[in-house]
């Protein structure tokens, strides 16, 4: 079984500042890693995913994430945030074998203020 921990439930940040949202996972098998974003009153959409290869993954809207196998982490970063980045961010994993079954973390609310 897998589990995902997002230690920060809320991250306040000023516009144009950098931000890092932390994600750690636990799994006895190899997993694929995902970050999804949920804007207010909307469904989730994929920001980026790590499947294999380079540990630095670039996604949409200027976000990137780095996979660290030894620390079992997949932290999300953006060098300069906008007001429009205010949303809930979910880290998720899926066992590489078998059907896709996303296991989500509890989410981090990113609050960007002017």
């Amino acid at each position, binding site marked *: 079984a897998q589990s995902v921990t997002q230690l920060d439930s809320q991250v306040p940040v000023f516009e144009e500042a950098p931000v890092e949202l932390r994600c750690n996972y636990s799994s006895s098998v190899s997993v*694929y890693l995902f970050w999804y974003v949920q804007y207010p009153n909307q*469904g989730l959409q994929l920001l980026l995913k790590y499947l294999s290869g380079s540990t630095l993954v670039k996604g949409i809207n200027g976000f990137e994430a780095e996979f660290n196998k030894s620390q079992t982490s997949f932290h999300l970063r953006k060098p300069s945030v906008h007001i429009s980045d205010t949303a*809930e961010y979910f880290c998720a994993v899926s*066992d590489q*074998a*078998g059907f*896709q079954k996303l296991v989500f973390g509890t989410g981090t609310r990113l609050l960007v203020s002017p």
Partner: protein
Amino acid sequence: DTAVSQTPKYLVTQMGNDKSIKCEQNLGHDTMYWYKQDSKKFLKIMFSYNNKELIINETVPNRFSPKSPDKAHLNLHINSLELGDSAVYFCASSPDRDPYNEQFFGPGTRLTVL
């Protein structure tokens, strides 16, 4: 134009009633999912169908019964509604059941049981 649509968007009902939520995707995907998001934003998979066949059935009360009349539709019927069923229910789809796929989410159905 909407890729994954759900109806209704809001559902308010009394305890003990039976209700259904409908989901349709026009992406030509083979695999569809139902998720429950609770009041703390925690997102958990309930069911997954691949080409109308049930492939994931999490520990969900048997009051919840999914039905897939064709691979573009996945409906969720809930019998004898309870207060604890209040949540936002998301439908999602992916091209197939492979674990590395992106999932496309609907806008959600907010169910309130009084």
